[in-house]
């Protein structure tokens, strides 16, 4: 099992969710986050006072998948979240030791 953490542009969130659903992924966790990468921030001007906004809003998607689905899931996210411009985001894949479904106590792949 792997945990896929994808940071994407907020307006791509729905596309990512649909693409993952099509692969049979049955659940994701989404967080609104801020951060910076190679995409530069922007400046805001309020009555002559200029503020540089370094941290840009992004959506963080966390999804746990079985090993055989990992490459497809990563490919799907990469495909739909891509605009070709700086700031499209990143995907991190990490090993997942254990998963437990709280309601039933199921573990491992069965809990996904």
């Amino acid at each position: 099992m792997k945990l896929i953490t994808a940071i994407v542009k907020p307006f791509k969130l729905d596309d990512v969710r649909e693409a993952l659903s099509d692969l049979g992924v049955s659940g994701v966790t989404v967080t609104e986050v801020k951060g910076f990468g190679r995409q530069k921030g922007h400046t805001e001007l309020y009555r002559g006072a200029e503020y540089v906004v370094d941290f840009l809003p992004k959506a963080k998607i966390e999804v746990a998948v079985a090993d055989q689905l990992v490459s497809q899931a990563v490919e799907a996210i990469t495909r739909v979240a891509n605009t070709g411009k700086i700031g499209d985001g990143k995907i991190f894949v990490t090993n997942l030791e254990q998963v437990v479904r709280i309601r039933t106590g199921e573990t491992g792949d069965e809990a996904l």
Partner: protein
Amino acid sequence: MNYFLKILTLIAISSFAGITFADEAAAVVAPVAQKGDTAWMIVATILVILMSIPGLALFYGGMVRAKNMLSVLMQVFVIFSLMAVLWALYGYSIAFTEGNAFVGGFGKLFLLGITPDSMAATFSKGVYVPEYIYVAFQLTFACITPALIIGAFAERVKFSAILVFMVIWFTFAYLPMAHMVWYWAGPDAYTDASAGETALATAGFLFQKGALDFAGGTVVHINAGIAGLVGCLVIGKRIGYKKESLAPHSVTMTMIGASLLWVGWFGFNVGSNLEANGLSALVFVNTLLASAAATLAWTGAEWVVRGKPSMLGGASGSIAGLVAITPACGWAGPMGSIALGIVVGIVCFWAVTSLKGMIGYDDSLDAFGVHGIGGIIGALGTAVVASPALGGTGVWDYVTNSVAEYSMTTQLISQLWAVGVCIIWSGTVSFIAFKLVDILIGLRVSEEVEREGLDISEHGETAYHH
């Protein structure tokens, strides 16, 4: 048939009354308020309340950081309530009864002697409004003016210090200025030249100087603007000024507040005519046009100079226009109002985006930049736009009952008197009051409190729960 009988009866009654009371009629003309004027003044008073709460509170609140939102709302809300009570206890009497040229008397302390039948003079001979609604209308002015000041030092002053300062400032700056500019015996006293002179001698100092201030350019805006400037100089800059982001947390709130201020301002300016008549309609048009022109001017200037027309700029422009037309609205013509709006929009844009940075004071929400500067432009501009040669109405002479001959230079000197006295008076009272409060309880919150935000530390609550 019935109709004719009624008319005959009426004629009979009126001629009978005429014969019986002919002698007394000249001596005792009990003034009666018109229902139309009274109804309008009630509505106008409500509109000015709307300007403070929630108008001004939201206009200012949107411009601070989220951690200080409630502190601004609360300051405006409580200052409004505090001033309202003080106005009834002693404010009205000191501002609007006969005394010397600088302050009134104590004859109407606690609103003593005012009854539902008491009348207040308007600007037309023989036309009155109930004194109670005049008290309430003027109360709303006394409430919003101190609340304007807090914009200059938002986000860093103790709530208790603000309240104590406001009591001192209201008593020694607002009340004398209102008396100096607005107190007069009323038009009915001006029966002939000598009676007019006698009446004028009882009026306020700046009224006697011939200064024109229809709805509060000096009393409200310069007065509050100068107090704000002195405040932010005495108190000092916010932590992180020009180093950290102090950006407004909700320009949306500011737009709502500015719009409520704009709507409420029709009560402020048009209500200041105290009657519902043709001049009131002119004041309405002038107020509308000056604000629209100033919005365009500020937006245009910002677009050209800074590259983008911002919502905050548009909202600021509308308020600058309203401030400038306030003293002039009863004497300007519509085109003069547009011209005044354009001038104030550009100058105030320059004042808050450039002048402030050059001098280096932290007027958080530009109480001085908009109300002080805009008020001065309006007060001096009144002398220009009031000129009949430029489409203004000129100034009414209550002795000859006609428009007096108009000299722009003479009027400008009168306006300079008003602006100068207001700057010095408000500046002095404010400086002493700030220093006094600083010694007594301390003006500034601690650095820790300022970092955490005034909402949590001063009021124990937060505006938004994410």
